[in-house]
């Protein structure tokens, strides 16, 4: 196990109590077991990279945390207490915010409307307070993406990076403590990716726990503290980034074998 490998390592930080613990989570669609008996945890100020091939179950697993799917079995603990997350609203109540691969924005609505979607600011009479929402959006964008100017147009006409910054601004504004980023840079160009990655580091420094799902192993290596590898619905292993090489992670993703189990021949064939 990783723990034995990590025992001799120089541990500089005392692990904080887990922010999230997902225990023995299983999800099946019909007869297909997308996620089988997965246990994973996340600490404050930590980035846990979740990697695996297509259909490995990363997104399905994480969707049980964001409230988009229900787990068939297993338990989710937030700050050590059992949490019931049945829908996205309940997840948000636990401070869980999600930034999705497919850019979950309503294309026809402007940036403030999207940032506050489902949690609009209203006047005492229940009227939407667009001016207050625009004000809050301008403030947070001034911090996250100072070049952002288009507050009154439908987000459809914005670039991928601008749209993603709206999604991230939403998470930041509502004081996410647990952030799920599902392929946050999949739709972005290199400069925009760098911008989002910088943002991840900033949020991490603020003590937010982040699950980062990505295909890009270099992004994951760059940002993560620990990396969990999924293969055919199961966790192969969760490893400390400093204890493994990218080749070993690739071996876990492609072969489904832990670092010690894969032979040098098998690893060599990956290239």
């Amino acid at each position: 196990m990783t723990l034995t490998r990590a025992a001799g390592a120089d541990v500089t930080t005392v692990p904080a109590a887990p922010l999230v613990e997902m225990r023995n989570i299983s999800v099946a669609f019909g007869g297909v077991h997308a996620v089988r008996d997965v246990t994973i945890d996340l600490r404050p100020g930590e980035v846990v990279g979740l990697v695996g091939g297509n259909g490995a179950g990363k997104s399905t697993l994480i969707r049980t945390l964001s409230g988009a799917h229900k787990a068939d079995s297993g338990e989710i603990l937030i700050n050590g207490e059992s949490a019931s997350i049945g829908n996205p609203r309940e997840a948000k109540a636990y401070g869980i915010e999600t930034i999705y691969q497919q850019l979950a924005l309503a294309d026809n609505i402007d940036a403030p409307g999207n940032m506050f979607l489902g949690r609009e600011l209203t006047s005492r009479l229940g009227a939407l307070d667009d001016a207050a929402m625009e004000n809050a959006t301008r403030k947070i964008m001034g911090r996250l993406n100072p070049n952002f100017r288009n507050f009154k147009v439908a987000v459809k006409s914005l670039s991928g990076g601008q749209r993603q910054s709206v999604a991230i601004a939403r998470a930041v504004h509502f004081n996410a403590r647990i952030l799920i980023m599902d392929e946050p840079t999949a739709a972005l160009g290199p400069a925009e990716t760098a911008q989002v990655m910088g943002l991840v580091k900033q949020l991490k420094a603020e003590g937010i726990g982040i699950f980062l799902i990505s295909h890009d192993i270099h992004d994951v290596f760059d940002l993560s503290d620990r990396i969990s590898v999924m293969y055919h619905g199961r966790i192969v292993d969760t490893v400390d980034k400093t204890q493994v090489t990218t080749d070993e992670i690739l071996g876990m993703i492609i072969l489904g074998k832990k670092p010690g189990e894969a032979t040098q021949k098998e690893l060599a064939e990956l290239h």
Partner: protein
Amino acid sequence: MTEAPATQVVTRDQPPPEAGGSLLAKLDIDGRMLGMIGALAIIWFVFNYMSDGNFLTPRNLWNLSVQSSAIAILATGMVLIIVSRNIDLSLGSLLGFLGYVMAMVQAIWIPTTFGLGYDQPYTWFLALAIGIVLGAIVGALQGVVVAYGGVPSFIVTLGGFLVWRGLIFRFDQGQTIAPMDKTFQIIGGAPGVGSAGELASWVIGIVACIAIVFSIVSSRRRRRAYGFPVRPTWALVTVIVASCGAVLVGVWEANHYYLPAGLATQYAKDHGIVEPAGGLLIPVGISWPVLLMIAVTLVMTVLATRRRFGRYVFAIGGNPDAAELGGINVRRTIVGTFALMGILCAISAAFLTARLNSAVTGLGVQSELYAIAAAVIGGTSFSGGIGTIPGAVLGAVVMQSLQSGMAIVGVDSPTQDVVVGAVLVGAVWLDVAIRRRTEA
């Protein structure tokens, strides 16, 4: 850790005080809306020219406004249904069914079944309340089957289309239900009893102008308070003058439509006035159904743009997944749009039964198709997420203008349908083409 560019904080003390960009951006007017008003103006002037000035008369415009009301009221609800990627084919049948029930309440049930007699002071209210509540329930029921049952709205409302019309035939056996309550008839908008009269019309017009100025100025003040860009003063004044001018011209037109000679003579008799040689000129003023239509438009516009409900309807139409993930109760919102449509069916049914002074089996036939056409001509997109309430009302007025204009210049009724159908397709084609070019 390197400092990423995204973490830099840039403070701008002084945001640009005035909105920049094109003329339309400065005026903060929807270009599509302006285009529609332009198209309507062209239609009006062409018909006026072809009919030797018989189109732009107070009398014709007054009739046009009343005739547009029923479809306009329905179209405001249809916008929300289509924006949320649904459709309602049942509303003509539902309108007929609600009209039948409301007519039964005032013509049979209260006077005969309960033996309370005609024209009781509560009759109009009971009939209307029963119609509206029933409309909301039936609409919500269809919405529940769509949202919770997962049956496509096209199918559910196609079923409703058959069910509600069938029930009218089943119950009324082809008979006409009449007469309507005297007070109830006011909403029918007949010249004389069904309109506000000269003074009230001016008062309503002036109050409307004050409300327009107040809302424009207060929204500008709010944006200023936050330091947001606002439109330049000349643009503000232009918009205020144009909107208030339109309101006052409308009132002036309605007040220059005088009671027809026969009704004026009757009026003179009733009020003990000696009729002068040239006949009495009694201004009719804005008719109640038109005021009702304007009120419905205002309420629906507020619902669509200033309330959570409307924001959610548009979000669902733009990206249903994003709406769901944003924590919006998508199903309940969809049920809401159908319930609202049911209420609007009841309001429209009240107007039509009062106007006919009876409920007939064929009441509201095809009005679902006209409501869809009005919404679509008014810029509502079938791909969802796009549409405005005032646009749909304007769409209804455009359709009615075409029909009554053609009638005035002597085009027969079948040909009118051909033209309106062609205009419907042409308008959407043009809209799609413009959208492709501007959003490419």
